[in-house]
């Protein structure tokens, strides 16, 4: 039985997301709060969580469909995201290459795909992931680190250690 999700008129569909990575893609795009924060409205009663959520500038304005672990001809299994009312810019979407390097961005206008692009790991990734090295200064003094990419791997600007994309704490 196929899984039906309504089509969107205006916004973005992110296809070919690695299976079960969809929720993390939403975190990276700041469309949901990080898993460490309560996502529901009750979080407003938690002052610290509210303040942190506000600092992180989470965009809570859009309807989102997340389809998890559906069959894919190319990938075996994949996740799909549909974001109504917001066009994700390729530069912004490139950050998701960290956890979903095969993802494809489809910009939708008037119910039609007007632009397609594959994500590409950017040369520099800023403030989306903490450095996995517990001795790194960024773990003490910053919320997240800055990484430069080297042949598909990531070097922390501060401790200079090299990590695979999957080692990063997103």
């Amino acid at each position: 039985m196929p899984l039906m999700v309504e089509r969107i008129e205006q916004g973005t569909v992110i296809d070919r997301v690695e299976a079960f990575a969809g929720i993390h893609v939403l975190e990276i795009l700041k469309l949901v709060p990080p898993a460490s924060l309560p996502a529901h409205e009750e979080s407003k009663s938690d002052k610290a969580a509210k303040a942190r959520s506000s600092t992180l500038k989470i965009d809570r304005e859009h309807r989102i469909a997340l389809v998890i672990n559906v069959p894919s001809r190319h990938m075996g299994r994949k996740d799909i995201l549909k974001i109504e009312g917001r066009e994700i810019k390729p530069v912004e979407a490139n950050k998701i290459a960290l956890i979903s390097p095969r993802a494809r961005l489809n910009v939708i206008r008037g119910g039609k795909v007007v632009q397609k692009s594959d994500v590409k790991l950017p040369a520099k990734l800023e403030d989306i992931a903490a450095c996995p090295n517990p001795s790194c200064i960024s773990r003490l003094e910053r919320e997240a680190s800055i990484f430069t990419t080297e042949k598909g791997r990531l070097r922390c600007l501060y401790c200079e250690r090299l990590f695979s994309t999957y080692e990063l704490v997103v």
Partner: protein
Amino acid sequence: MADLISIRDLEKPTIEKLLESAQKMEKNLFTSHEKFQGKVAATLFFEPSTRTHLSFQTAAQRLGMSVVPYTHSNSSSVKGESLQDTLKIVDGYADALIIRHPAEGSARWAAEVCKHPVINAGDGGNQHPTQTLIDLYAIQKARGKIKGLNVSLIGDLAHARAMRSLLLALGMFGAKVKLIAPKGLEMSEAVVEEAREKFGAQIETSEQLDLAGADVAYVCRIQKERFSDPYQAAKLQASFRIMPELLKSAKDDMILMHPLPKIDEIPPEVDASPHAYYFQQAACGVPVRMAVLEYALREG
């Protein structure tokens, strides 16, 4: 003004200029340097240090600068002051900040916080760029060149930060490097790969302690504190000692280097050997760090 944070930030021509400048500094060690009069260097050492701290202080004083030493145990840090606040305050007093801190990347982060130049004097297990410059300078001084020399890096190559940056620098300068480490204490594969890819470095590896054919043997200690089994550490150290008998297999003009402090990997009787070069190497710390201060404080 320029920060000096990591050997990875330095291009070969910059390093060559620094080495040339160090040579001039060594020739004019007792000459007054007017342009540095009235300048203040702050040394912020959050970890113990003998050679690095003293040689930076000496270098600054030889240049005619004043030195403001920050002592962690007597500072407001013990009252809970943040590192950022400490840095900003010292930045308001001094013309250059020399920092050693246990957190990796601390010097780069300090450079973001401070408006005056920051010099990395060791950031945890990451970098110790001025030690690398001293090593290059000392090799060049003893052998007249670096390119084409057979350099063996010996000991606990997994944990010694000085060895990682030195491998990159030797690769950059065209030395042939042999990495000799006990099993389990080998140099990070990522650094070896980086030296090969960036500089086409010729690198071979071995678990066997052997000095034959080496022009330079650079030894570092086995870091016993990293071992859960002290007997295993002691056993490895015993198998990686530079004993006088071993030196008989070395080339006559081979130099034996060590970042110091040496513990028992080089016994005291080796100090009298013509190969022993580590004390001269340590003395190079002053002119090289004078050149580093000049680089950091240069106009434009």
